[in-house]
């Protein structure tokens, strides 16, 4: 048990971003008035954007972990579009955008270039949304994993192609309404497929570090970025970042909806090393998936005009399976982070 976790129980607002009662050295990066603000004000993300928040959380933590020696490759997507509308940029990191499909490959190239130049101190992050990661950029990503290139790839998963108008991606959950999976017909919304769980696929490559995180658990996210930056080789971090516009929730409910995704078991938060699960964030206040689904108009057809009991139960079964599979209710095991 670290010092931080020992006093934690006694704190007012333990789960808050900052904590004035903690020693400065164990406080979160985001609570630091001098944090990097890697993604600065003036960006054009929608109100309450989870991705903008997740990107700042992750990159600020990485910047601290590597003392600012960081270069970032970015796939096409919301994150790229809203952060760099010509001639403005919101980035306060060395940042490069090339194409939709090739962020992982650009990251590989950057790492190779740094190696050739003898810049061992400079580390590389490649990042993108779920579209650029699990669909369009998937081949490059798998290649980067297979070659064990020294890159941390971060996927900000908002479960659809948002900036082009909310089209389905292979990360879109079952039953969700998007422009391409309308709430119409016998089985409205997205299909109940087999799923495409990229963190598990990444683990199957046997790479040194794979983790999932949520924008609703800052301390866990920061811990995982720090852990990833302490390791060399191919690493993968999958961050759940709600999109109020695409999901149809209130702009102020971004973190609440992310929290319920984790607390219902629908988005399991865990970490794995060399293909083996080594830690999980256990559920603190379990909720039925219904609580999560009801907040979002993309699932409204499950509740109106008539409750779709069968398909709600199927979604609950997905959550229950996650809980069993990752041991999310196992209180004996505390989260890996302090």
């Amino acid at each position, binding site marked *: 048990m670290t010092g931080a976790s020992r006093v*934690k*129980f*006694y*704190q*007012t*607002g*333990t*789960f*808050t*971003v*900052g*904590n*004035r*009662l903690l020693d400065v050295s164990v406080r*979160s990066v*985001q*609570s630091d*008035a001098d944090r990097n*603000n890697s*993604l*600065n*004000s*003036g*960006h*054009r*993300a929608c*109100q*309450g*954007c*989870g991705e*903008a*928040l997740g990107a*700042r959380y992750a990159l600020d933590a990485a910047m601290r972990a590597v003392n600012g020696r960081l270069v970032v490759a970015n796939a096409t997507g919301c994150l790229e579009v809203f*952060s*760099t509308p*010509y*001639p*403005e*940029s*919101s*980035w*306060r990191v060395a940042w490069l955008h090339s194409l939709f499909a090739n962020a992982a490959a650009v990251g590989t190239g950057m790492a190779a270039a740094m190696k050739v130049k003898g810049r061992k101190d400079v580390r590389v992050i490649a990042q993108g949304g779920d579209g650029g990661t699990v669909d369009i950029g998937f081949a490059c990503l798998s290649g980067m994993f297979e070659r064990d290139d020294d890159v941390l790839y971060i996927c900000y998963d908002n479960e659809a192609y948002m900036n082009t108008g909310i089209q389905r991606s292979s990360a879109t959950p079952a039953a969700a309404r998007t422009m391409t999976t309308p709430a119409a017909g016998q089985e409205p919304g997205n299909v109940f497929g087999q799923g495409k769980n990229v963190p598990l696929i990444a683990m199957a490559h046997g790479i040194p570090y794979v983790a999932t995180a949520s924008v609703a658990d*800052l301390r866990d996210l920061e811990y995982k970025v720090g852990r990833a930056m302490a390791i060399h080789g191919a690493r993968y971090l999958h961050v759940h970042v709600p999109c*109020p516009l695409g999901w149809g929730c*209130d*702009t*102020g*409910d*971004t*973190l*609440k909806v992310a*929290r319920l995704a984790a607390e219902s078991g629908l988005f399991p938060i865990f970490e794995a090393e060399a293909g083996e699960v080594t830690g999980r964030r256990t559920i603190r*206040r379990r909720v039925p998936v219904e609580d999560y689904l009801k907040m979002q108009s993309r699932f409204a057809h499950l509740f109106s005009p008539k409750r779709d009991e069968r398909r709600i139960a199927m979604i609950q079964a997905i959550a229950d399976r996650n809980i069993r599979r990752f041991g999310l209710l196992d209180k004996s095991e505390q989260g890996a982070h302090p």
Partner: protein
Amino acid sequence: MNKPFAITLDVGSSLANKTGSWRTERPVYVDRLPPCNHACPAGENIQQWLFHAEEGNYEAAWRQIMKDNPMPAVMGRVCYHTCEGACNRAKLDKPVGIHAIERFLGDLAIAEKWNVNVEAKASGKSVLVVGAGPSGLAAAYHLALLGHAVTIREAGPFAGGMMRFGIPKYRLPREVLDAEIQRIVDLGVKIELNTRVDDLDAVLATHRFDAVFLAVGAHLAKRAYIPAGDASKILDAVSLLRGMETGEQPLLGRRVLVYGGGNTAMDAARSAKRLGATETIVVYRRTREKMPAHDFEVQEAMEEGIMFKWLSTIKSESGGTFTVEKMKLDDKGKPQPTGEYEEMQADSLVLALGQDVDLSFLGKLKGLSINDGVVQVDSNMMTGCKGVFAGGDMVPAERTVTVAVGHGKKAARCIDAYLKNSVYAPPPKHELAVFDALNSWYYSDAPATVQPMLDLARRESTFEEVVGGLDQSNALFEARRCLSCGNCFECDNCFGVCPDNAVIKLGQGKRYAFNYDYCKGCSLCANECPCGAIKMVPETI
């Protein structure tokens, strides 16, 4: 803007895009009234002193209490802590043990000899306070701090009023009471003991006082007519409790009946047990649920072996035999006689049927209005007689030490305004911080710290204090359970969760500010604020 497309863009260039123009609602920082503060009859800023205590800054916490209440060590023991009944934490697990922390701070202050000083310039005005009970002492304290010369006239041989003559030692050790009274005396307050004011008119005619505060309490025991063969077997709780202080310890015998169901009845019964009674039975005309005594006092009494006879009234006494009539509750919950009688043997009967105020000293004071045996006052605590204020048990209000202390504070402020030829206007109250305004996710689960209780065996036979205090470590733990309802505690949540970096962290103790140039009005900060200190308000265009 002569940049070719697809080339480097300057760092900080997005700051040109003032996204604040998107906003339809703006977040604003507010202070809401915490329910504990709202419920405190003494008007303590509990949330604020807990904030200091959480950091281990006990002296600052104590000084915050002292702004409103000069007797934290007493209050932490005898107050019925309505604050804890209102505490939002109760909806998560258990309320914060506010009284226990207050007591800890009060005791620490006595041990460390912390003191307060008069900083105001002498006003040249003098105020007479009649009665050195909680209300009179509190008024004197606040008046002294405001620079006025204060004289207290007290009929009894000691200061403290009902805190000394009504509350047994096992609940309030006298050295604690003495220490906190001494601190008030040290401010220059003059207390004249054994000086009963028999005729206020006469006093005011011979001495020049600029204002008067009356706080004589309610010391006359109410009697019930009980035909008795031996009247010496019947006494009242006020004399019993008072007698123990003045050294006239009454002989109660081995089997004692206590008649009544209030807190005084509990004090009398538990004191009788400690004076050697082997059996003490509380006789009450209604049921436990209807009893006015606080539940914890009844609970503690039961633990000490006090017995209870519900739904019973005492009719008469003859040769040590008391005739008791059974009662039953009617539809309205009122006790009605049944005509069924039984007999109880006892060596004595203690009447604890409530108290009245002795108002004889007021004589023909001009403009004074008395109703229901208590003096009527206006919203500024002033009686119908100009410059004469009153508070505590002698005015219409709940009769507790805390209410009395609150009256003292309020009266002092009103008197101060009166002496400056103005009228006291209380600052406007903030909107109440209800539980729904909080985001409880952010608070960790932490059970309440239970104060150690004196072993039962010692409790029944001695007047040692029953409830123990907290120590440094568990007082800190308990303080940190506070949710800081409605008041920013600088948790950095707003600063952290803003997707637009539109919250500026101003540094410790200075809280935060919004950067409205970039705030898009998403309301994430307001929703994720644990304590409900951010409010969204519509933009006006």
